[in-house]
């Protein structure tokens, strides 16, 4: 479609959303994602699309819920503490099986925290803060190019599985500009004519609801959702492996921080130490199986996150007792630098190698 251009992550996400036919955006300002709403405000009004400066994130996500029921491609974006406000509607959207794309450009918490970059919403995204047995697909881009790719994918998976999808970016990605190519949406549209609400003209009326007073039917509904989540876990796991095949040490990290982790791998490779990087691109479904395979031939895993060990739980669940797992983390602020990481890894290696 076009050559590479210098794009901020937030703008890249907004442009990709427009490119793949997003016709509804509802949002409320919060740093560091506000540019998404700012950019779309003019673009969408000029195209006569639906754009509402909502009264709150609660308003925004519920407008998204309504709009999604019409079959429209719907997006809202927010950040951390404000995504907390959306948890109720996300639980409803999962039960109602409504496709909503939610972009969370993470900032630091807990509570209001600050606008510093952070990866503190891994648990909020993958486990969720809403009630009931539900799952949300969580995609984790690591650079601006992936912001574009995974925005397309988010809309596609939302429609394909009739489920909310979270694009989990962070303050660094949202605010950083780097060259990226805005290509065409590679995914097909999914036929939704069998379930959308557009008036019962020529057909029986439909309803979309989560309330179910029959215990039998509610159990069945939740089992059906569970089957869908199993299909998602079967089909949609996505990850990047960098020099993992022969690695004695594998770093696990996600999002933009994984770029530093890659640089760290190169550093150790140059010194003759076989280090690799394993980066989940889908945080849910998490690549448990592949990581488990890798753990059978790798001695040491080092999980690195900009939080105090949230993905660490999934990493440990994958590796079990097959290998040693260490953790390097910092909750907020300047991304862990290559030098800091090398220093920390040197210390871990000294301890761990003594024991293996």
């Amino acid at each position: 479609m076009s050559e590479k251009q210098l794009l901020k992550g937030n703008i890249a996400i907004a442009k990709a959303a427009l490119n793949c036919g997003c016709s509804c955006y509802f949002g409320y300002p919060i740093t560091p994602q506000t540019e998404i709403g700012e950019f779309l405000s003019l673009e969408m009004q000029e195209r006569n699309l639906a754009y509402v400066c909502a009264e709150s994130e609660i308003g925004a996500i519920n407008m998204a819920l309504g709009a999604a029921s019409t079959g429209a491609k719907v997006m809202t974006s927010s950040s951390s503490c404000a995504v907390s406000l959306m948890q109720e509607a996300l639980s409803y959207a999962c039960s109602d099986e409504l496709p909503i794309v939610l972009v969370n450009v993470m900032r630091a918490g807990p509570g209001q925290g600050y606008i510093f970059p952070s990866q503190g919403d891994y648990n909020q995204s993958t486990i969720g803060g809403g009630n009931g047995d539900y799952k949300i697909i969580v995609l984790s881009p690591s650079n601006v190019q992936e912001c574009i790719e995974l925005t397309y994918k988010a809309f596609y998976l939302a429609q394909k599985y009739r489920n909310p999808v979270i694009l989990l970016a962070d303050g660094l990605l949202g605010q950083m500009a780097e060259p990226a190519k805005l290509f065409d949406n590679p995914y097909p549209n999914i036929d939704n004519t069998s379930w959308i609400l557009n008036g019962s003209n020529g057909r029986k009326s439909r309803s979309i609801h989560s309330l179910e007073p029959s215990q039998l039917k509610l159990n069945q509904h939740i089992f059906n959702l569970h089957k869908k989540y199993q299909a998602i876990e079967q089909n949609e796991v996505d990850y990047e492996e960098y020099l993992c095949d022969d690695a004695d040490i594998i770093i696990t990290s996600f999002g933009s921080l994984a770029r530093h982790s890659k640089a760290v791998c190169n550093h150790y490779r140059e010194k003759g130490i076989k280090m690799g990087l394993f980066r989940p691109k889908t945080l849910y479904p998490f690549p448990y199986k592949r990581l488990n395979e890798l753990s059978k031939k790798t001695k040491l895993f080092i999980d690195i996150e900009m939080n105090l060990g949230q993905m660490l739980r999934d990493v440990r669940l994958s590796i079990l007792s097959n290998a040693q797992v260490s953790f390097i983390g910092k909750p907020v602020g300047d991304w862990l630098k290559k030098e800091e990481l090398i220093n920390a890894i040197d210390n871990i290696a000294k301890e761990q190698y003594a024991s293996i």
Partner: protein
Amino acid sequence: MQVFSTPKTIKENSSFTFCPGCDHGVALKLVAMVLDELNLQEQTIAVASSGCSVLLYDFLDVDCIESPHGRACAVATGIKRAHKAQGNNKFVFTYQGDGDFASIGISESLHSALRGENITAICINNTNYGMTGGQMGPTSTLGQITSTSPLGRNKEYHGFPIKTAEHIALCDGASFSARVALYDVKNIINAKNTIKKAFEYQKEGLGFSFVEILSSCPTNWKLSPQDSHKKIEEELSKTYKLGIFKDIKNE
């Protein structure tokens, strides 16, 4: 000549699950009659809320979505705007209780009215949280005994109730705001005409239209259906005055 029959927008073989004598049934019947008269059934999306009104989709033969508690006007906003963005003009209304519309959802409700969303909201005001067993709500009147105001609502201790229709009337984006009651035939006919007007204003694209319906809750008021209506006529309609508080066509 048949002068009354079950509205075709009421689902065949459906039975309301409301308590005996509850005005919810009358209100829903009127909504269905008006949808019939305006021939809106096949282009309507109704938004149900939490509380006694939640099972709307079991009764009304129109496309229907349940919203989280209080969010009906936000959900309706999304539906209306999404259809408009796809070039379709659909009829969208919410059916909510007073707790849903004016307490937990007052932000969504007021801002939809302020934005002039071209939707209609029907709010059943029965001065308590009915489904959970009659707790004090935003509209419980001063002195009203409920399960959470056992000594009666006290302005110093509990604060004041809200006059919803008057608040909506203050919103520039509202085209119509009225309060009606259902305690006798004359008022029922007036309520039906008022709902019809509110629906017509949406059809004409005039902005947010609103009807608050003073309704009985015999079970939680611990009164017979007849005495409940008497209470509305003699007491409640004095606190909550009936009438039209905003009509964009009369400005």
